[in-house]
């Protein structure tokens, strides 16, 4: 068959190969992400399985075997807590007697044999405990202190990070001379690539001391220090997305406002910022997601004590930090393991929700705003 004049040219084959390579790579990564989701959810569902009720007793034995190691791990935090003079963390009034928990003493004391009581309560009852003491003869999986702790640090991080990030973005987009902007933008964005363990260390040493001198807080590491640490990761995210959307506002709006006799500041604040509002909102949402999910800084700077209190000067422990600190040592398949995955699911759902809102709602609004529908 002779080639007709519309036959595929040679170069098209090369393009086909490139196209298929890209497709395969793309679908592999999408599939990987999907499998991660499936895995996280599947592990969480162990909590829902019918034999979940039986696990406490069986896992209690498992815990006893592993007791020394696990207790040492926790004893560390308990000792830390002692240093911080806050033993009451580990003595939450759970209603179950005034007896101190074994962990509270911070020693490798063996658990009391209260297996009978253990078997009576299901994991689901334990989730509403006021304390988080996952390794114990009577484990308490109260996620409330963790959620409250996360809320505190996230709130503080956004309270600090969002205004700073937005103001820096406004400065960079509207006020800074080109030379300054060319330095400022990459510098702040570089901060986003900073290893969080370095930021955590910085907070642990310098920020903690500074804040304690400044505020005279009882505990050296607390939600404030954690919030400051997290805000350092929030700023670059808020900055870069807000800067991008502020810069995308048509220059003609700026000219129109200045021509009407607006000052640069009035123009930035009353015209450009509202015009970029959806993008700035998205920046804040992603910042929240970042603060919410950040693990290393939360482990290092928050004091890591799962306390259910209202004060922001108290040590806290976040959801992400809990997973990060405990997942490595948890008894595989135990209740503790399942609860950690439940926490992971909460993290995932919140981050996913924030990202979905940003993607679907905010971007659409931004597009509509500038195309004027």
């Amino acid at each position: 068959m002779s080639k007709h004049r519309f036959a595929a040219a040679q170069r098209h084959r090369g393009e086909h190969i490139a196209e298929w390579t890209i497709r395969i790579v793309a679908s592999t990564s999408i599939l990987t992400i999907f499998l991660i989701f499936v895995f996280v959810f599947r592990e969480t569902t162990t909590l829902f399985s019918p034999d979940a009720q039986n696990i406490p007793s069986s896992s209690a034995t498992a815990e006893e075997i592993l007791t020394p190691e696990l207790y040492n791990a926790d004893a560390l935090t308990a000792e830390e807590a002692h240093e911080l003079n806050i033993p009451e963390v580990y003595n939450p009034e759970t209603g179950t007697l005034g007896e101190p928990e074994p962990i509270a003493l911070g020693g490798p004391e063996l658990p009391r044999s209260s297996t009978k009581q253990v078997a009576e309560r299901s994991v689901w009852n334990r989730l509403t405990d006021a304390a988080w003491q996952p390794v114990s003869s009577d484990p308490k999986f109260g996620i409330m202190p963790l959620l409250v702790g996360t809320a505190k640090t996230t709130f503080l991080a956004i309270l600090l990070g969002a205004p700073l990030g937005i103001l820096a973005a406004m400065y960079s987009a509207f006020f800074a001379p080109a030379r300054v902007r060319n330095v400022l933008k990459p510098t702040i964005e570089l901060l986003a690539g900073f290893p969080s363990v370095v930021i955590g260390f910085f907070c642990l040493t310098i920020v903690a001391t500074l804040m304690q001198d400044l505020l005279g807080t009882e505990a050296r590491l607390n939600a404030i220090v954690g919030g400051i640490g997290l805000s350092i990761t929030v700023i670059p995210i808020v900055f870069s997305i807000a800067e991008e959307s502020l810069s995308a506002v048509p220059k003609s709006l700026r000219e129109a406002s200045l021509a009407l006799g607006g000052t640069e500041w009035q123009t930035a604040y009353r015209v450009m910022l509202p015009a970029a509002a959806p993008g700035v909102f998205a920046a804040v949402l992603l910042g929240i997601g970042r603060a919410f999910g950040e693990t290393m800084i939360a482990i290092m700077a928050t004091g890591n004590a799962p306390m259910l209190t209202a004060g922001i000067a108290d040590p806290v422990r976040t959801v992400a930090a809990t997973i990060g600190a405990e997942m490595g040592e948890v008894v595989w398949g135990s209740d503790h393991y399942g609860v950690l995955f439940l926490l992971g699911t909460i993290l995932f759902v919140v981050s996913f929700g924030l990202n979905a809102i940003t993607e679907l709602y905010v971007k659409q609004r931004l597009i509509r705003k500038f195309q004027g529908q």
Partner: protein
Amino acid sequence: MAKEHPVKVRTSDFSVYYGQKQALFNIGIDIFDRKVTAFIGPSGCGKSTFLRSINRMNDLIDGTRCSGKLEVDGIDVYGKEVDVVTLRRSIGMVFQKSIPFPKSIYENITYGLTLTEKRSKDELDHIVETSLKRAALWEEVKDRLTHSAQGLSGGQQQRLCIARAVAVNPEILLMDEPCSALDPISTGKVEELITELKDTYTIVLVTHNMQQAARVSDYTGFFLMGKLIEFDRTRSIFTAPSKKETEDYITGRFG
């Protein structure tokens, strides 16, 4: 050249440079109070540059310089003690492609008013109505003042921008090709508007449309390659231009 009117804007030996590039060469012109002055000329000849010099919008472009004198009411606009913001408040500007602020129609009009002082709701309502009426837009939008201005048609948007500029009650109105993106009907409305507004304002209009210049302006200036070739009463320019270049341009043998 007739001198029977007071002069609003006067330049002498006025030149503008974008970096190394000179865009305007020794412009000397008298723009008369409460008259419509049109600038015509081929693309890139410096009409916009001159217009933007009057309210110092060129300051926004890095590396712009100017020399010579540009006076409004006898005050050197580039003088040391002139505050740009105050200057721009008394010189309104309508751009070729001016999108309304992404706010409501009402807020678009009140924006310029609220920059300087707080005003009562009644006062604002009143100014919004009169400005929109002056821009011949009131009837079309009076029922949807709180709606987004971006829902308006192109022609309505341009009239809104005129209303926005008029609302702050400037003395001079600079219009840079205000009709270039409009259909003939909207163009007609804007032209009508210009004729009405000239009782109150000194209007400087840049246009590529000869008929428009002939229809609405009292004086016309012809720019070519950064120089003001000829400036005279519109009738003289269009019927008996004194320069060969002007005649060539007007009759379409040029640019």
